């Protein structure tokens, strides 16, 4: 999963050097992702992992680094696998 996301970012967000992409660094701070980039990332996550990213989940804690994205996806996918107890708000850190 980490590699899939890493590859998506490398292919779509254009970095000078792949080694600049560090798992726990902010994609926003490093100028790798902008506002249209976030929308592209969300579209990719929704189609690849068959999830629905809620508006309130569009926060840096979920999406602003590779580590955050992986953690978010794991929480999100865990909810889907046991939907009877799931509360979408559990993923939102708002």
């Amino acid at each position, binding site marked *: 999963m980490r590699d899939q996301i890493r590859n998506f970012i490398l292919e779509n967000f*254009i970095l*000078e050097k792949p080694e600049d992409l560090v798992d726990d660094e902010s994609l926003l701070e490093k*100028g790798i992702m902008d*506002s249209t*980039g*976030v929308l592209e990332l969300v579209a990719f996550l929704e189609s690849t992992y068959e999830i629905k990213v809620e*508006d*309130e989940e569009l926060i*840096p804690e979920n999406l602003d680094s590779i580590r955050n994205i992986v953690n978010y996806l794991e929480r999100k996918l865990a909810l889907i696998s046991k939907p009877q107890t799931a509360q979408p708000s559990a993923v939102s850190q708002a």
Partner: protein
Amino acid sequence: MLLQSVLENSARRAPQKIALVCRGERLSYGEIDRKANQVAAFLRSQGIRRGDRVALFLDNSIEAVISLFGILKADAVFLMLSPQLKAPKLAYILENSGARALVSDTAKLRAVSEVIHAARALEAVIIAGDENKIEPGLHRNVVAWSEMERGSGSQAATGNANIDVDLASIIYTSGSTGDPKGVMLTHLNMISAATSIIAYLENVPEDVVINVLPLSFDYGLYQVLMTFKFGGTLVLEKSFVFPYEIVKRMAEEKVTGFPGVPTIFAILLQMKDLKKYDLRSLRYITNTAAALPVTHIRQIRETFPQARLYSMYGLTECKRVSYLPPEELDRRPDSVGRGMPNEEVWLVDDRGNRLGPGATGELVVRGSNVMKGYWGDPEATDRVLRPGPLPGEKVLRTGDLFRMDEEGFLYFVGRRDDMIKTRGERVSPKEVENALYAAAGVAEAAVLPVPDDLLGSAIKAYIVPKEGASLTDRQLLLHCKKMLEEFAIPKYFEFRDTLPKNASGKIDKLSLKAELQRLDRQN
């Protein structure tokens, strides 16, 4: 009246009032004024003198706001540079302006370290952020922001030598030749523009304005200047990258004013459950940089029925030109309105003759908001600043073509030059083409705008590769990323064997444009 008085007056009137909310911090007018005095004292101690240029290269932040006032208080001129600038353009601006000091941030150290040794005029460098990340070899006179704050610099105000016809700021904007041009603005220019805009927005001290636009963009910068002038509160955000955060903050802070550009409103309107948030405090929304599609105007008004929506138009050379009173929006949704208070506008034909209502021509602006010219470029200045009605007076030729109706309302027709407006930014095709020509394997390049719902216009590049060269989108994107700001990087590349040429052998952009228009109609 000097520009820093917008802060100083509010600090005197309401020292405890919260002026700035940024990244979880809340600063009062009194605190910002004292910290700005300290920056001024520090700059003076480093030899910064009246009229010296001081560059700011950092994201929207408390330090950016404090510094800009500190620079003014030191009788110096501030340059708010785009935090997205790449090293070549940063180097060009530092050299062109002869900047004598630089304020930046540890997040920008890579670009800064690339250019700093070539910027010979730099006497002092201040770096905000984590001071442990600053390498001592960066510059012979580098100081951490925190170190400066701990230092002995006085927090008391000192007198100013400047008067209101002195320069307050130079704002670098895209030039049609490809190199950026520095728009010289006096204290009077900026106070005049801020006063006129506040008048028509009817701002009051109770207003809370949220700014997600970069302060390097005059539209963003003026949110600070205006809010401080009317004594309101500014919620300063770094960007609109995470729209949910912004909407949440708008509800929490009971924001009353929201300035945006079409791209921002397009993203906002895509949010699925905007109605969940209590945004009833929103009193007004402003749009400029490019026209809003009529469908978006309707959706914005449905979503925020209590908010007044202002369509506006302007350019850095005079800040703002016109606004459409919200009550006119239903009657003329495609108009950018009439000239703002304390300003006169009219249209001229190719020979400079004044045109009457109903005509189409180039827009001319007269007022104390009109710039003094382009820094170090008298020829470019003479092309746009022309003699006005009074002896010695100059008026601004905007380069924008408009139609004016019988009641004096303006309708944008197009540019006289070929500048592209994308994501609310003005991009010179020449600058993008120059960057593309610098890439290995490019024989010819032509850059044109194509319509785009989200961006206003998107940038399309036509490329003819050199013989034997194999080029890909990706190679060119990587190359552009090193040379250009994000918004100036082409979205589309099309590779061709040849490009159409006109009689003088130049690439015939008109024929490419006609081709694009045919395609657009077919879709």
